[in-house]
């Protein structure tokens, strides 16, 4: 029934290259999560702060990140800001785009998580002589991260999937970029992208599994 001859062997011979690409994909995803979480915490604090300006900046960030496509954000990070003479390499542009997106979504999650932590926790910390910052850092934050753990896992999966958008800003070392380059050489579109899909699937499964193991270790209470 197929009017197409599959040439899997030819596609499989490129597997090592694709696995190298998968490493770059992971690198971008992990970095974007680490920085994204840090930024999201900062955004959360800004949204709680007394300063109108800080609250406004944080709110604008969160709304922009959540209400425009990730592809748009990445494209903007590369071609948009270049209008100001600021140039980022494709890697950095992609990283900025995904991180911006991660931080926005996570900040919204953190806000929800904070609601679930009673005020009395902060009060208890403050009455032991902790500063507001200490109480946040040692008492609120760990609980917030626990409540947000599942959404963070999902975000991590999305970060991995979003790396595929790097090609639009000239990225060709990540898994999608490598696959596309190989496709240009050989035109074995179906086989190559099917292999890439499987690699992506395996990566996301590793992440969810890893997250589960990590949660079991981290959150024993």
């Amino acid at each position, binding site marked *: 029934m197929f009017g197409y001859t599959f040439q899997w062997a030819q596609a499989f011979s490129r597997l090592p290259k694709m696995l190298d690409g998968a490493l770059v994909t992971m690198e971008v995803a992990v970095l974007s999560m680490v920085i994204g979480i840090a930024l999201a915490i900062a955004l959360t604090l800004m949204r709680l702060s007394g300063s109108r300006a800080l609250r406004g900046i944080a709110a604008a960030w969160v709304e922009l990140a959540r209400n425009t496509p990730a592809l748009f954000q990445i494209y903007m990070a590369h*071609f948009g800001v*270049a209008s100001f003479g600021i140039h980022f390499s494709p890697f950095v542009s992609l990283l900025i785009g995904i991180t911006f997106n991660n931080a926005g979504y996570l900040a919204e999650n953190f806000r929800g998580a904070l609601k679930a932590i009673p005020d009395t926790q902060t009060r208890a910390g403050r009455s032991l002589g902790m500063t507001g910052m200490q109480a946040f850092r040692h008492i609120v934050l760990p609980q917030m991260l626990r409540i947000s753990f599942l959404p963070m896992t999902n975000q991590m999966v999305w970060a991995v999937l979003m790396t595929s958008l790097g090609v639009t800003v000239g990225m*060709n070392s990540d898994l999608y970029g490598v696959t596309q380059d190989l496709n240009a050489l050989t035109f074995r579109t179906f086989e190559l992208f099917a292999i890439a899909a499987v690699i992506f699937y395996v990566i996301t499964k590793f992440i969810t599994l890893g997250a589960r193991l990590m949660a079991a270790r981290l959150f024993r209470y």
Partner: protein
Amino acid sequence: DKLDDIISSGTLRCAVVLDFPPMGSRGQNNEPVGFDVDYCNDLAASLGVKAEIVETPFPERIPALMSGRVDVGVASTSDTLERAKTVGFSIPYFAFDMAVTANDAAGIKSFDDMKGHTVGATAGTYEAIALEKQVQAWGDGTFRPYQTQADVFLALSQGQIDATVSTSTVAMANVKSGNFPGISVVGKAPFNTDYVALFTNRNEYGLINYLNLFVSQQVRTGRYAELYEKWVGGDVPPLTVPNVYR
């Protein structure tokens, strides 16, 4: 066969790349224009059918054909052997020389000056594949493939990349357009002439045969030279490869 199908359906659907001036681009009202567009219209006229231009980015040309979304590719496609394993090519209908275009600020004066710089080209094209190989051979500098020719020149004029290799026609057209201040064509790239061909399904011999004759007729009737003058200008490049048949 397909040739009959096209004639009886009354429409010829051509895959054309529309961010590849002067071969294909968009006019004032965002309508398709360019050498390839006219070429497709001529082909349709010769078949006595209506032409339909289907915009396809470079990486999507072959899938568009394979998926039956287009009948013929008139899309500046290099006729490599690797690709001929998948699709059927006509004889060349156009030939490109490769030119180096650089951002004036980068101080690049020739192909070899590109060594050590960040350079780019359109992903999936003949020149991109060749240039990436060259950058690897130099062992210095960075290569960036962009999704479209437009993104390459945008990046070049923004200074995100210092130079690009593209077909000389594209380079001239873009520099002349005035859309990209601060870039100029600085020389030729020492790549082989890039012969591009029409393509269709590998097993459609009747149609391929027709395409071959059509290309030949375009040259014989002077239409090829006419279109060349209209869209590119200057010396008309020969479409025959010296010292071999076809």
